[in-house]
């Protein structure tokens, strides 16, 4: 993207103006492509279950699809289907779906785990919720539900009223399963979480220690699996789904999450959004981002400093200011429910000048505060001693694990959907994407601190635009039918840059006013999977710091 870069070599299937030539891609895969489907976001190639690994490997190596963005599994009346949503880190607008149908009677599919590390967890989730089995997945067990759960809740014949038994028993030492480590003596298996101050919620880390060092760590999630996908599938498009995104990433990042649903549903149902509403959305979303990053920084400091320290309190103080601004705008402190399909719920609060003044005051106040954070955190030698060169996540691993957001940008991956796949009002504004080559805990914290600065810049520009907006053109919502019924079998995958990274939504319409399948691609879910790379071999405190620097929100991880 940068100017100095030489003329980039084109991948197979890439046209010089940055589009995709699907015919060329189909030629590349040859006879593997059984059929081609048209999704709203990209074309889908239908392939046989046993050629998953070959096809994905070819696409990754020759066509440059190095980002397995999401895996959607679903059950139709006659078949199961897994859809691998592929993207490129260089240009996320170049998308491709790989559709793998499997038989109803015996839903066994090949695994992508050999090509993308992130597929391991995604396939576990698909197995857990839908019931497709992935051969060759090295670790195919339930991930969100307890291991003794009966049935697969998102499959068609699941009976929600059947009783379930959940055990509370000793966990086996994962080292016993992994035979490549010959000598497992002198190690200690310890459960960190689900009730533990380091886990920021209800994450469970099965940790094996050798002395103070972590030999093996296996995140066990699902302690907050609130059936978000089921909830969204039960709601109508127009109004009933929008409250739920607020509760995925609940750290005041609601606006960003709502946008992900709004973007997907609007593109699915061909709804236009007035530009005025887009500006308001952009402003609100960036406020959310600052609030979310504030908490990320605060809790990261909490992990390294101990509880109730100055930085944590300062970040909460600043969050209170933001929450006040957002409350003025939306009427709620945390669960905003402010976006509507086709716009936003209502216009800026009156008197407008007063609100603009408040926002401007905050933007002016931010740089001084950030300087304070830099004084307390990044320029503190003890802090540097603790976080520099710990929790290393090399860029190639980050790509393979599908990391996005500040985690990826802290590993030097220049990937930001706000710029690379523009939506809202972002491409009209002046701002920078922050990256850092440190790849360590420090880099991730630094990226967040600098991103807040950029967000403040965006907010200021939005205020400028909003102030000059002619009074009679303040259209906050376009005309949207009361009941939305997108065409039957229309499929879409759309993502936005949420606080934690790429938050994507897949919706398949079944012709009714509710989604046939609603799949959430959560950035924290993918980021958390990379903890193993960061933490193994490190000391316990560094593992805790690495977890803090990932900034996971369990609501989003487990959904």
């Amino acid at each position, binding site marked *: 993207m940068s100017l100095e870069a030489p003329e980039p070599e084109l991948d197979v299937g890439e046209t010089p103006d940055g589009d995709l030539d699907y015919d060329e891609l189909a030629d590349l895969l040859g006879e593997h492509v059984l059929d081609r489907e048209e999704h709203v976001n990209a074309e889908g190639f239908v392939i046989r279950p046993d050629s998953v690994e070959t096809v994905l490997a070819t696409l990754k190596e020759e066509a440059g699809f190095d980002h397995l963005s999401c895996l959607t599994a679903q059950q139709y009346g006659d078949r199961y289907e897994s859809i691998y949503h592929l993207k490129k880190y260089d240009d996320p607008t170049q998308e491709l779906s790989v559709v793998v149908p499997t038989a109803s009677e015996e839903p066994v599919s090949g695994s992508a785990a050999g090509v993308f590390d992130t597929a391991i967890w995604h396939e576990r989730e698909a197995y857990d919720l839908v019931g497709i089995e992935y051969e060759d997945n090295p670790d195919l067990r339930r991930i969100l539900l307890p291991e003794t759960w009966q049935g697969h809740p998102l499959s068609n014949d699941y009976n929600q009223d059947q009783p379930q038994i959940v055990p*509370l*028993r*000793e*966990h*086996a*030492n994962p080292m016993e399963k992994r035979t490549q*480590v010959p*000598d497992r*003596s*002198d*190690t*200690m*298996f*310890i*459960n*960190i*979480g*689900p*009730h*533990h101050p380091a886990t920021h919620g209800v994450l*469970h880390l099965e940790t094996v220690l*050798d*002395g*103070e*060092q*972590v*030999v*093996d760590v296996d995140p066990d999630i699902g302690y907050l699996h609130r059936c978000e996908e089921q909830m969204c599938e039960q709601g109508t498009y127009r109004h009933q789904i929008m409250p739920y995104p607020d509760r995925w990433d609940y750290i005041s990042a609601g606006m960003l999450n709502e946008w992900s649903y709004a973007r997907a549903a609007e593109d699915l149902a061909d709804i236009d959004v007035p530009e005025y509403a887009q500006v308001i959305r952009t402003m609100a979303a960036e406020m959310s981002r600052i609030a979310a990053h504030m908490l990320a920084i605060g809790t990261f400091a909490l992990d390294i400093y101990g509880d109730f320290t100055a930085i944590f309190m300062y970040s909460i103080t600043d969050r209170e200011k933001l929450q006040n601004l957002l409350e003025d705008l939306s009427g709620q402190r945390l669960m905003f429910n402010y976006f509507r399909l086709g716009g936003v719920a209502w216009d800026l609060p009156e008197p407008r000048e007063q609100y603009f003044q408040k926002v401007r005051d905050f933007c002016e106040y931010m740089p001084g505060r950030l300087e304070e954070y830099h004084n307390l955190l990044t320029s503190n030698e003890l802090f540097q001693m603790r976080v520099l060169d710990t929790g290393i996540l090399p860029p190639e691993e980050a790509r393979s694990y599908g990391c996005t957001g500040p985690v990826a940008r802290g590993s030097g991956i220049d990937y930001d959907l706000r710029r690379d796949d523009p939506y809202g009002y972002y491409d009209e504004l002046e701002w920078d994407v922050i990256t850092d080559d440190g790849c360590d805990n420090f880099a991730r914290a630094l990226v967040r601190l600098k991103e807040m600065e950029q967000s403040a810049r965006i907010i200021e520009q939005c205020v400028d635009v909003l102030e000059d907006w002619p009074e009679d053109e303040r259209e906050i919502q376009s005309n949207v039918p009361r009941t939305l019924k997108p065409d039957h079998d229309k499929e879409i995958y759309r993502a936005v840059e949420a606080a934690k990274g790429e938050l994507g939504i897949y919706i398949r319409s079944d012709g009714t006013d509710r989604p046939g399948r609603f799949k959430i691609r959560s950035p924290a879910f993918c980021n958390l999977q990379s903890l193993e790379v960061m933490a*193994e*071999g*490190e000391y316990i405190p560094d593992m805790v710091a690495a977890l803090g620097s990932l900034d996971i929100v369990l609501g989003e991880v487990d959904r």
Partner: protein
Amino acid sequence: MSEWIAIGGLAIVAVTIPLSMMLVSWLLRPSVPEQGKRATYESGEVPTGSSYDIRFNIQYYMVALLFVVFDVETVFIFPWAVIFEDAVGNDAVGFISVFLPMAAFLGILVFGLVWAWRNGAVQWATSQQAERQRVE
């Protein structure tokens, strides 16, 4: 001698205070045995194994050995420090003859420390297993 009686007195007081607190607590506290209440706390999970049957990697073993050596040596420095100023002031002894022997003694200690340092003994021993995992 009376000093040590008073110190002994405080030792008794120092034990009596906690004991009396325990007594008060015994009088005041309820006792509701419940299922699971006495289970070892491990973040709400059932602990795997007990902490007694672990063969644990004490990563500061070398440091602990060195500590014993140095700690004993510091005992010798105490009496020297006490008499130092008097001895220096005393014409019969003089600075050189008080200082040099101890300087030599400390020199040997420092030399030992340098040797241990170079051999990597005064640092946290990294775990081989963990290092292997990091590489993988």
